[in-house]
């Protein structure tokens, strides 16, 4: 049901995606890989929480559920971008990306 002037909101991921992420996070393989990479156990509860809020939103369109879900996902994005890059991002792709390979390159050494 579209409110006038507002775009219809839906959870950033399908609810099943949250559940599959939770299951994947808890799996033996993932816990092993996490220890191998970070030396710690993964924390998976947030996925379960997100799944719960997602279903809550689907059932009751609860504002709390929606906001909790948004907060959680924004946190995830923040976690992924909390470093300062060593390089500057481009505005445009490299101009010579598709330039034909030069068969008659000038000899320069």
């Amino acid at each position, binding site marked *: 049901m579209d409110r006038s002037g507002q*775009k219809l*909101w*839906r*959870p*950033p*991921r*399908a609810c099943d*995606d949250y559940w*599959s*992420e939770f299951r*994947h996070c808890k799996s033996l*393989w*993932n816990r*092993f*890989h*996490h*220890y*191998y*990479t*970070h*030396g710690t156990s993964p924390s998976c509860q947030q996925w379960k929480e997100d799944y719960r809020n997602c279903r809550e939103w689907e059932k009751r369109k609860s504002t709390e559920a929606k906001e909790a879900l*948004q907060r959680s*996902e*924004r946190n995830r*994005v923040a976690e*992924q971008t*909390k*470093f*300062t*890059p*060593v*390089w*500057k*991002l*481009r505005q*445009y*792709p*490299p101009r*010579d*990306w*598709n*330039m034909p*390979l030069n*068969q008659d*390159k*000038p000899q*320069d*050494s």
Partner: protein
Amino acid sequence: MDHTKQEGEYGYELFPHRNMGKNKQGSIAEGQFTFNHKCQIMLQFAMETSPYAKLLLSAMKNSGCKLFKDRHFSCEDCDGTVSGGFDASSSQIVLCQNNIRQQSHMNRVVTHELVHAFDHCRADVDWFNNLRHLACSEIRAANLSGDCSFSTEAARFNFGLKQHHQDCVRGRAIRSILAVRKIGQEEAEKIVNEVFNTCFNDHAPFGRIPHSKKDANFAYRDYENRDRYYSNL
């Protein structure tokens, strides 16, 4: 593009066929033809079936750097044990047809080089003059390509457990730099350590460190879903 780089300074000697012109397909040695043909087939398979590669190809296309197999990939003979490289001056990924014998290895090399290509596409990477940039891309490539997964390391008889992944990434980044630049071990270590935390935590475009194909599939799913994701944050 500036072509005045000295061969010996930038590791080009590892790829002796880079400046020979476009005759690699017409090589007369039968062995060459077989290696080249096998390399092409494995490359095609990697591009079509590896979720790591598919995600990177998609991300690059969306960044304005669509990859064409015939233009941006080159199967060549290389020196020593090097498996591949990214040549920024020609925007090509080089695959060492004489050193890549298995599909799993091809998948990893393609992913590794695609990370470099992706960095080249989205950022102003100064490959030739800025060692920190080079180190950063090598850290990311080792981290995200499966180069340092438990099984890959075990196959090299590097059995480590707690946080071994990070040791591996550090070590491989240092090795990669030493292979293409004439600097000492200590200097290479210092540079890698300087940028390690930043670059180890830069997981673009995966959004996570893909430890396995399943992780990579999840990352690919997320990538395909990114429009919905960002518009509902």
